[in-house]
């Protein structure tokens, strides 16, 4: 479905990714974990096209997208959320969500300028669809006309998820979707993620530091450290893997254990 082969990315002397290879399976939730600076966000960045890897390739549905522009990848059905919220701060929740569906829509310059006709029809159809599939689904109806900048952090993250969902993605990349949330909000988001997987059979990649959530919902877990994959497998396998324990707790923990 989505695979990365021997990808390397470095910034000056820092190797954010080195010869990383992994694959996400259709319809599964793949979690990517690792200590701070392990290269998780960098991995998302080469998948969504914000950075180009210096070596290696990225494949999506057997198509080589290593050199495709980010907007082309979105059109293929890759959507993501950001670790540091990247909403359009001047816009309302609804406008942000509508932007997510940009690549699925058709009306161009002249349709838009004339508005009455094709653009209006498309706009109303889109609105109906988004209300049903995204806004109701993620329980955002009460805030749809508020400006995103006025929303609390947790809701902003949820709007970002909504915006990504509006793309009707085949692959959804979630970068720390519950960071900074309390237990209850975390459970809400976990439930949404499972619902998305079930309802649309979406392939989901999840970067998250909240281990209990990762272990609860993911089908496969990949552990990164210093840009390399150090373990992978089911949540259970990974939990008991000594290399993982070492990466998280440091070498001294080994002696203590």
């Amino acid at each position: 479905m989505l695979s990365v082969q021997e990808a390397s990315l470095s910034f000056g002397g820092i190797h954010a990714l080195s010869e990383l290879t992994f694959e996400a399976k259709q319809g599964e939730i793949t979690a990517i974990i690792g200590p701070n600076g392990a290269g998780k966000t960098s991995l998302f960045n080469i998948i969504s096209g914000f950075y180009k890897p210096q070596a290696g390739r990225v494949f999506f549905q057997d198509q080589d997208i290593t050199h495709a522009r980010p907007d082309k990848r979105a059109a293929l059905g890759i959507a993501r959320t950001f670790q540091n919220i990247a909403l359009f701060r001047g816009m309302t929740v609804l406008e942000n969500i509508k932007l997510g569906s940009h690549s699925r829509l058709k009306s161009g310059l002249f349709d838009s300028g004339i508005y009455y006709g094709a653009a209006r029809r498309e706009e109303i159809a889109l609105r109906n669809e988004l209300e049903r599939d995204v806004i109701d689904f993620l329980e955002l109806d009460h805030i749809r006309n508020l400006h995103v900048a006025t929303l609390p952090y947790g809701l902003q993250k949820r709007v970002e998820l909504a915006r990504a969902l509006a793309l009707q993605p085949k692959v959804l990349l979630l970068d720390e979707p519950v960071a900074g949330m309390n237990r209850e909000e975390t459970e809400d988001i976990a439930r949404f993620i499972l619902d998305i997987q079930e309802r649309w059979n979406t392939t989901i990649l999840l970067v998250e530091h909240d281990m209990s959530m990762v272990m609860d919902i993911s089908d496969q877990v990949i552990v990164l450290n210093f840009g390399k994959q150090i373990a992978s497998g089911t949540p259970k396998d990974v939990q008991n893997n000594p290399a993982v324990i070492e990466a998280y707790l440091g070498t001294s923990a080994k002696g203590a254990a």
Partner: protein
Amino acid sequence: MIIGEYKTDYGQDEGIWNTWAKKLGFVVALLLLLLIPFIGNDYQLLMAGQIAIFVIAVVGLNVLVGYTGLMSLGHGAFFALGAYTTVALHQFFPHLFPLITLIISMVVAGFFGFLFGLPSLRVKGLYLAVATLSANFIVLFFIRQDWLEHLTGGRGGIETPNAYFFGTELITNQQKYFLIVPIAIVMFLFAQNLFRSRFGRALIAIRDNDHSAEILGISLFNYKLKSFVISAAYCGAAGTLWAYFFPAILPEDFGLNMSITLLICLVAGGMGRSLGPIFGTILILMVPELLKMGAFYFSEGNASAQIYFSPIRDIVFGLMIIGFLIFEPMGLVSIWDRFWRFINRWPFAK
């Protein structure tokens, strides 16, 4: 307390004429525009025509600067291209139908807009401002060249043609009003509509956060360039009407001063707001006239005092632009908004 809005489907929610006040306002404005040519004197029609032409250009600039967030200090060049294209076309086809001239000018200006826009794919902000400023100087440089003199009149300027509308020559300001204002209205509405659906939304997204826009599927290449082309074409259209409206043009008319005046109109009115260009242009074009009247009044027609007029006008302009930036950075539109908020809430709250 805001009185409730009653809507039964999402289509209604997407509309823009969604309150009776807006509908009424639009109708009243149209009626006024229709009345002006019959009640205004020649001088007032001169001002009205000039304002309408500038509104077109500033609406275009708003697409680029206000909505897409790209800076330009070179839009005077597109104005020039429109005006000079018109003059050149009429040398070959003296009775060319004005709408055809208009479209050709828009295409020519739009093409140069595409060229000006190319740096915007690599450079941002200030660098783009200086790149466009440079392009403006370069375009005017070519217009002044001797080897183009038969088309452009060179540095000495050139007389401009009048428009022929089905055999009638448009000579008086009143006649020209009926050409200019309808075009201005159509172009204004077109630009306003852009931002109600996919295309315009993409431009605003680029302004707010270009990287996440791109990752959502908006091609920066495509949309930045289109934004440049649209805004250039609008200025080109304004240039054509300018050539029809005034008896002659000079290269200097379209230099940095013009580019900056367009920006000032936009800032004074309110960037990224549909009514901004209208408010701003009216204010900025009226101020020198008011100053002129004031100067005439205080100097009691004394000609030697008139030499102070142009420096004083410059100072007032400069202070106005700075004043707006400091005290009303969102422009006149935000005063307008406050006014309507007050009306909507009255008498329940202040």
